[in-house]
């Protein structure tokens, strides 16, 4: 018998965790001598008060959806893939190579090519840790951390020594050709007499991220493979008895996970920067962990949590612009969300379970 009804597990626990994280964040803002209510107002008006703000919020949310989904798929198979950052970095490299080398006639074709390259590079960067975990038992957390750091070195080398245009000091590639530039929300939704989303980076990849959420949901809950992934994640020995190959599940889950993180590059590299720069990922791979944990590793939860984090990111940028609160406040909020929804989950869950048990005893 479950100790708690499903809705409490899916909604109430994350909500309480979020409220706790918010209260602590407010205390932090008070502690540095600023007004939390004014800060929230500024964040809301800055991130949601205009189509420009929304354009940034949804741009960040797109990044976090990809990395959040990536983390969630691996976590369903009990793999703690902390390497989303490195996989997204390598995805960026793949997208950049495809965009720079091939003369694309139209952005739709370029997008398809870039998606394939981003996924391939991200998946390859996840494949080595996955193989080592499945075949040699090397702990995936440590290997993926190492691969994040190795990935940063690879990117640094490629940008400084190989892909940088001659005469440029900036460690970045040249701009991609105009035919590869993706339509932004401004191009898509502006009418002749009203320009919306002016200058904001949100672009067509937002819809690909939503499609990815739907596809991941179908995969995890509506296919045989998804069932096997979940079964393996619940109990490795149980899955083994059921004839599920651990090697196959670890490899497939990690390849999908890395591919999704790598796919993020179509948004930040191809959609926004339109060239590859150092630190293009800006930590989105790690935010994916917070997003997935908050979203309970469910695609719909990831979608909602990604929008929330997009709001926090854009709101935090506005705060840094207009007040003395540095952008790092967002990192603190992110840490608190990870802490409460992930590590201190039982602190919220145990008392709640007790309350529900008492309620049930009262009715029966």
């Amino acid at each position, binding site marked *: 018998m479950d100790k708690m009804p499903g809705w409490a597990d899916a909604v109430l626990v994350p909500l309480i965790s979020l409220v706790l994280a918010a209260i602590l964040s407010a205390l*932090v803002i008070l*502690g*540095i*001598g600023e007004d939390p209510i004014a800060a929230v107002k500024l964040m809301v008006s800055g991130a949601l008060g205009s189509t420009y703000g929304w354009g940034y919020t949804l741009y960040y949310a797109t990044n976090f959806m990809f990395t959040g989904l990536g983390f969630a798929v691996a976590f369903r198979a009990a793999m*703690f893939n*902390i390497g989303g950052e490195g996989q997204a970095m390598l995805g960026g490299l793949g997208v950049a190579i495809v965009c720079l080398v091939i003369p694309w006639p139209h952005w739709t074709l370029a997008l398809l090519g870039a998606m394939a390259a981003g996924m391939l590079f991200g998946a390859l960067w996840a494949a*080595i840790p996955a193989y*080592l975990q499945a075949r*040699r*038992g*090397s*702990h995936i*957390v*440590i*290997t993926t*951390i*190492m*691969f994040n*750091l*190795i990935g940063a*070195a*690879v990117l*640094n*080398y490629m940008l*400084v*020594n190989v892909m940088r245009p001659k005469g440029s000091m900036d460690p970045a590639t040249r701009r991609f050709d105009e035919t590869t530039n993706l339509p932004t929300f401004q191009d898509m939704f502006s009418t002749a007499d009203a320009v919306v989303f002016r200058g904001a980076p949100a672009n067509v990849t937002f819809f690909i991220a939503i499609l990815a959420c739907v596809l991941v949901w179908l995969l995890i809950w509506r296919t045989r493979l998804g069932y096997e992934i979940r079964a393996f994640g619940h109990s490795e020995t149980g899955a083994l008895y059921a004839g599920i190959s651990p090697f196959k599940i670890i490899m497939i889950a990690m390849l999908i996970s890395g591919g999704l993180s790598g796919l993020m590059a179509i948004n930040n590299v191809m959609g926004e920067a339109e060239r590859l720069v150092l630190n293009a990922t800006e930590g989105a791979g*790690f935010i994916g*962990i917070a997003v997935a*944990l908050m979203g309970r590793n469910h695609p719909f939860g990831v979608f909602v949590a990604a929008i929330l984090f997009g709001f926090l990111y854009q709101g935090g940028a506005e705060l840094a612009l207009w007040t*003395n*609160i*540095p952008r*790092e*406040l*967002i*990192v*603190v*909020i*992110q*840490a*608190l969300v*990870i*802490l409460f929804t*992930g*590590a*201190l*989950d*039982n*602190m919220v869950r*145990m008392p709640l379970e007790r309350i529900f048990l008492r309620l049930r005893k009262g009715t029966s």
Partner: protein
Amino acid sequence: MDFLTLIQILDSTVRLATPLLLACLAGLYSERAGIFDIGLEGKMLAAAFFSAAIAALTGNVWLGLLAGIVASMLLSGLHGLASITFRGNQLISGVAINFLASGMTVLIAQDWFSQGGRTPSLSGGARFNPITLPFAEVVEDVPILGAIYSELISGHSILVYLAAASVPLTWWVLYRTRFGLRLRAVGEAPEAVDTAGVSVVGLRFAAVAICGILCGIAGAYLSTALQAGFVKEMTAGRGFIALAALIFAKWRPWHAMWACLLFGFLQAVALRYQNIDLGGLVIPVQVMDALPYILTVVILAGFVGKAIPPRAGGEPYVKER
């Protein structure tokens, strides 16, 4: 490469290996007791900031060191609360601690000093200054040995010697004391320790506390001895290199020292030479940066002797199971 250059590189190896060694030993206590800790980086960062900040405000580096240790231990306590008391996921807790430290240090630094997330530069009594060992000046002119003693062994800050001393101390505690035996047992078979009537929770909290102290010293060393003040993200992945060294050393104290010296040497070489030219074959600096991580993956893969972590590592202990 002449002798003096070699001595200088080895000298900077010792400097760079010290924070790694302290953090590595910190991780060793924690992981030997069955608590995985990927939050070494965050604890070092928090300690680096608070020791530099308090040293800057009071002018006394010892108070700074104390503040660093307290900050690091608070984060350790949080890790213990999450992973021991509430049986949460130790990895997630570590990730959260890293972000918490990374954000809070800049936030508080900005609030206290308004210098874009740094502390003011430290000087004089607010820093750990090099100490000259006895006779260092006398033997300076003796060929080879004199240079080794006066340049390489003498002239470091007290924390370097402390780190060196903590290696045999850790060995002695782990392998020659009752506490050490129990600590190792609780990381391998907590149920056996529990059956013997020893508190698993108590032992694990003790291990996590020692981890906090050592990370605190490591962080204080970074900002008050190696450098003169705190800069945003100044740990620069050292916590992860220490973690790598710990695996490299297969969770043993003496091996940890050699692993840290090796990784410190790689850092020292990367710092001194940008690209290394081996007669036509140029090794780019990025390879030197990535080498500790690549070596760790190779070790983990078990191609050069398998690294097997403590058996109960990462698992919260539930009495009734």
